[in-house]
């Protein structure tokens, strides 16, 4: 991990109608760092990374990616910037009209203009890197289990060897063993590529395993951020309540009485 900042987010704001989702989010992602953003459902984790990826337009704030202001980019410039990114979606988001190998090779063929034969070889190689054999490449995404779909999505995220990888709830919906397999693969892939990573999750086992640094988001703001080893001694009652999964504490879930 170096001191060079890959992504600097300052004062990020986003509202949907009267609902304020992001209320001035600030954080830095350093080169080679694995940052995990934790927070409850509806706290603004997904919206934060969608703004970073340009999938949503923030209402205010700045997102500097390698020193370039990303909020002002559009069209070809935005697509060009996306070459730096790989993304693992929560539901895998595999293209069900394409076979597995073409899903993995998609960014190489469509994004980088690589010929199909070469892209296919790389796709098979990346499938191997996430523990899937070449025969899986010919299957349709619908024929795979949830864990295999996540692995294929991980292979797709790393296929173009991105500088920054974003993981959206990488272990959600998986059994504990498969979740651990995915965590190990994330650590291996990020290390092998020398990439920086942002993960959003509320899985504390996963957080403890993959994070160099942890940031907690609550009501649209980063309320605590530090190296992962200090999470158990944060001195922040919001963090304490969240990591121990207690119903009592300063975080009150919006539950309607029956």
């Amino acid at each position: 991990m170096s001191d060079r900042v890959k992504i600097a987010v300052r004062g990020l704001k986003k509202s949907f109608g009267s609902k304020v989702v992001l209320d001035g989010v600030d954080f830095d992602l350093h080169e080679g760092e694995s940052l995990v953003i934790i927070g409850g459902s509806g706290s603004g984790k997904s919206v934060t990374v969608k703004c970073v990826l340009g999938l949503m337009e923030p209402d205010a704030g700045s997102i500097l990616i390698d020193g370039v202001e990303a909020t002002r980019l559009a069209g070809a410039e935005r697509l060009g910037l996306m070459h730096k990114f790989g993304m693992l979606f929560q539901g895998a988001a595999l293209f069900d009209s394409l076979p597995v190998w073409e899903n993995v090779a998609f960014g190489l063929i469509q994004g980088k203009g690589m010929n199909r034969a070469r892209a296919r070889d790389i796709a098979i190689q990346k499938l191997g890197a996430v523990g899937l054999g070449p025969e899986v490449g010919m299957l349709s995404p619908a024929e795979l289990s949830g864990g295999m779909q996540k692995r294929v999505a991980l292979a797709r995220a790393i296929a173009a060897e991105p500088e920054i990888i974003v993981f959206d709830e990488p272990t959600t919906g998986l059994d504990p063993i498969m979740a651990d397999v995915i965590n190990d693969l994330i650590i291996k892939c990020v290390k092998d590529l020398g990439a920086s990573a942002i993960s959003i999750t509320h899985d504390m086992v996963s957080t403890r395993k993959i994070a160099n640094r942890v940031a907690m988001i609550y009501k649209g703001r980063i309320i605590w951020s530090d190296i992962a080893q200090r999470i158990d001694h944060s001195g922040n009652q919001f963090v304490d309540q969240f990591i121990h999964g207690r119903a009592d504490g300063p975080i009150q879930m919006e539950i309607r009485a029956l």
Partner: protein
Amino acid sequence: MLDFLASIGRIFILFLQATGRLTLFAVTGISHCFRPPFYPRLIGRQLVDMGYYSLPVVGLTAIFTGMVLALQTHTGFAIGAETAVATVVVVSFTRELGPVIAGLMVAGRIGAATAAEIGTMRVTEQIDALSTLSTNPFKYLVVPRLIAGTIALPLLVFVADIIGMFGGFLVATYTLDYNPRGFIGQMWDTLSTDDVVSGLIKSAVFGFIVALMGCYNGYHSKGGAQGVGSATTYAVVSAAIMILVSDYVLTALFFSS
């Protein structure tokens, strides 16, 4: 009274907003049709889906419509029915029935499928995934369908015209006992290049409308399975209405003079 007027005003403003969004979507789609990157493989796949696989349903509809048209015209014209049947079948099919029937059938088949496919991609984040893989989802998903729809429907209508006229011929010669040679001769004399071309131009517009409404509703769908279902319904209904409205406008444009 004021509340009533206010609600009418709100509905009108919502209508204008929706029209504006659709117009912007269509203009963006058309502008992307002329700018690289192009996806010939995807256009080809859509041409096969929209054109080739729609042939059975369009052909079946066309042949029965031609047969019914011949029967109805025969019962309506007591004198000179043989000439009238041939003329009505040819003119009706080339100018109106071919494009409208094919347009409506394709709206049902392709408009719904397009909205469902793109809508599902939207709610399962596949469209976001395209963006993260440096691919413009608009160019990849919408443009090939717009191009394919505009090309495929005129081809379908050309075939539907022939099949529909053949249906009329079958009824005229086998059921109504007309002279086949005379009937074909009358059809040939009535057939006009202007009628055929105007029908094909109409059908290109209808094909664009079907693809546009499928893509627009699918692209903006939200809220899971229910949202995709609504998008599918809107795509078919709005495409059918727009086909009938634009049919009137184009007919007035081509034949008013």
